[in-house]
């Protein structure tokens, strides 16, 4: 029960921060005194600007706007985007699945790669293979996701023409069924690969450390002494016991992956939440910023809750301790 109150309190604090922080940024959504190179912006007169401010209720005192926001939120209304001129929930519904697709794929792949390589490295600890893997993955970890995305874009898309340059699907192609699915995977391949590689090293290090700790345990020495099959020792005794921190990491990484996705989506013009978040912040689109951060918050809290629950399932000692 106290856990749920904790979550509700966290949600309320984040909701309030989401509401007030964008409004603390200097400027307002309808103030443009400069423009991007090569682009033109409508030159709103003061009367037009004021009419927009009143239309979207920004002329009211902030506390009234806050009460209104919370009230509307309870009714399931996330508001109307100033810039995109559409209800926030409709925008999120269209964009969120693309980001989920990228993130979930990247988490699954990076977990598999990280755990497999981490296990190999731990098994061959101190030997040549361990050193090579350690060096390579540390090197990859140093590269930001967007930079890796750019490298992939220029090599695989521009130079070798193996993947599309941008977007999530081939437009106006009219693909259906398997062709449509293949087209989506083809477009998502490089963004997923960029995110996966960057995440893999973190997972690799965690898996390696966790495994090394487990390998040093007496029951593993006993298993080796008993002459058990190496694969049985690795998968049955080591990986199973080393999984706890990895599982936690999987869920916790969901939130941080959104950050990486923002930049990668920008590189590939991928129509997900990341690209949307950048546009919303640049445009001071308060309702959309609130909507996006609310969604991310709910996802992260849910992931945390699941991590707590799963941790308890995997290691009954945790739930017993928390009950005590």
């Amino acid at each position, binding site marked *: 029960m106290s856990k749920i109150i904790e979550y509700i309190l966290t949600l309320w604090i984040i909701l309030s921060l989401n509401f007030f922080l964008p409004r603390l*940024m*200097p*400027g307002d959504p309808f*103030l*443009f*005194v*400069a*423009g*991007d*190179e*090569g*682009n*033109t*912006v*409508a*030159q*709103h*007169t*003061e*009367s*037009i600007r004021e*009419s*927009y401010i009143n*239309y979207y209720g920004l002329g009211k005192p902030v506390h009234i706007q806050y009460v209104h926001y919370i009230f509307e939120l309870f009714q399931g209304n996330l508001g*109307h985007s100033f*810039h*995109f*001129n*559409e209800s926030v929930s409709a*925008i999120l519904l*269209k*964009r969120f699945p*693309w980001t989920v697709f990228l993130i979930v794929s990247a988490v699954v792949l990076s977990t598999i790669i990280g755990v497999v390589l981490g296990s190999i490295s731990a098994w061959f600890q101190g030997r040549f293979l361990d050193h090579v893997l350690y060096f390579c993955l540390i*090197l990859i970890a*140093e*590269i*930001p996701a967007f*930079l890796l995305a*750019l490298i992939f*874009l*220029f*090599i695989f*898309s*521009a*130079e070798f*023409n193996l993947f599309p*340059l*941008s*977007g*999530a*699907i081939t*437009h*106006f192609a009219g693909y259906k069924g398997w062709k449509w699915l293949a087209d989506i995977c083809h477009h998502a391949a490089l963004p997923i690969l960029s995110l996966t590689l960057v995440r893999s090293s973190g997972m690799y290090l965690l898996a390696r450390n966790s495994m090394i700790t487990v390998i040093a345990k007496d029951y593993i020495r006993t298993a080796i002494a008993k002459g058990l099959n190496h694969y049985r020792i690795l998968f049955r005794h080591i990986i199973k016991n080393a999984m706890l921190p990895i599982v936690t990491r999987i869920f916790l990484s969901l939130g941080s992956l959104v950050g990486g996705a923002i930049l990668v989506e*920008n*590189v*590939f*013009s991928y*129509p997900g939440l990341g690209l949307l978040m950048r546009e919303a912040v*640049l445009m*001071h689109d308060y309702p959309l910023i609130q909507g996006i951060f609310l969604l991310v918050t709910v996802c992260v809290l849910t992931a945390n809750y699941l991590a707590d629950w799963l941790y308890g399932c995997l290691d009954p000692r945790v739930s017993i301790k928390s009950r005590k």
Partner: protein
Amino acid sequence: MKTKHVLLLTVIFLMTSIIACNTNQSPEKQVASNRNAKIIRLEGGDWGYPTPYAHYPRGPGGYKTNLIFDSLLESDEKGLIPWLAEKWKTIDNGKHYLFTIRQNVTFHDGSPLTPEDVAFSLEYANQYPQSWSYLYQSIQSVRIQDKRNVLVTVKKPSVTMLLYIGRTRILPRHIWKDITHPQQFTSKASITGCGPYCLTAYNKSHGIYRFEAFKNYWGPKPAVQVIEFIPVSQPILAYERGEIDMAVVPPDVLPGFQKDARNKIVKSPAFWGIRLLFNLKSVPQFQNKALRQAIRYALDLNALVEKTTRGAAIPASAGILSPDHVLFNPHVKVYEYNVNKAIALLESAGYSPIDKDGTRNDQNGKPLSFQLLCSSGARISRSPISEIRIAEMIKEYLQKAGIHIQVKSADQRSRDAAVKNHQYEMVLLGHGGWGSDPHFLKKRFANDIRQGNSLNECRSFGYHNDRLNVLLNQQAITFDHQKRKQLIAKIQMLLSEELPEIPLFNTTNYTVFRPSTYDGWCFMYDHHSLAHSKLSFLEKQR
């Protein structure tokens, strides 16, 4: 950190090599140009639903809407031309405008365009501001004179009213008459216009648009049957791969495109620029014209252009209007780069010689030391011009004349807010619209107008000049083109002498396209983009 730098450099090298390799093709014979095309593809991205109320207030949104919705007047390369209005008359010194509406025009749903539709659209735009029309609350009445003529009476006569009325999109009254929230009206009926194209596909998330030619269009036949806008992350690569048929090319990779005879490269008019503003209220030293002129003499704009835009710009005129503007006065005062002249000007104005710190003092012993605010350039732009780099160069130049500059950068919105609230000493502002009607000079400099918060209206805060005021007010009600042209020329002369602000440079982009795919592109007299002109997609009269 070092690893990151090395990686970044490697990637930049890779990118440059790849682009260079791709563009380094052998010259071929000139390919015939194509004046008609079945389909062309252009760089997309979401710019809003293309109705006059729902598109985003940015160029690409507005000009897509123009393909669907016609207006009373249109813009060609020389000026305004009759469009839905066959002719027009300015009556009583701009108090009234009489428009004769073209006959046999139909909307996309087959209903005829009537003077009622025109009157409704203007009144509606007067009541609800269109995303890209400045008619809001400026019309007193609209009267239908007869079956063909509509008389518009404005609240306050001004030379720009014709432009504002003429560019307002005409809507079908039967569809819009009951709509009270036009921004949110985005049903299929909302994209019924009488323009040359109909919208057949739009996806907000993916940023795609598809326009098909309207078969019963009243005017010049559409030369392109289908226009598709698709999202691209790297326009140059997308052009090279044939995914899009036009791209804006940075000067670095231009030679590669020039070598390939299949490409045609067009230089755009210089209608985007950067200017340096002074705050004369918070820093009274800027009231001194000699100081402002000395600053201008101390700046080497040619070098600034070369180093910050790699040559894709021209030094701006001290008279503010771009050299490519139809009303540009070539006889304005010219300030050649001359540090000695700057120093002489400062010393004759009573500023002390340069002291040990390398700075001068004014008559009150106050050092000539100012803060220059600029945008940190956080926005990812196709051709990013770093304002910080410009500010740093200005700092170096002015230091030679004994003026110390402290560069302060802020994110774009913070800078904009500081400009709005006059919280700056000197500030750099970059924006488009330098080709628009010079009436913006009145909004920028006339003292009887409250400072606006739009791009062209921000002024050097605290500047006042009675003579300039008179000229600006006079041009606003001078409807004779030649007389107004003379007034605008005088205004530019005065501005170049007074230098209430210092325009630095105007950018000139290079657009590349394949004439064999389509070669009907043209500019508008006041705009820099080929793809934004509606006439680009219509057959030309020979």
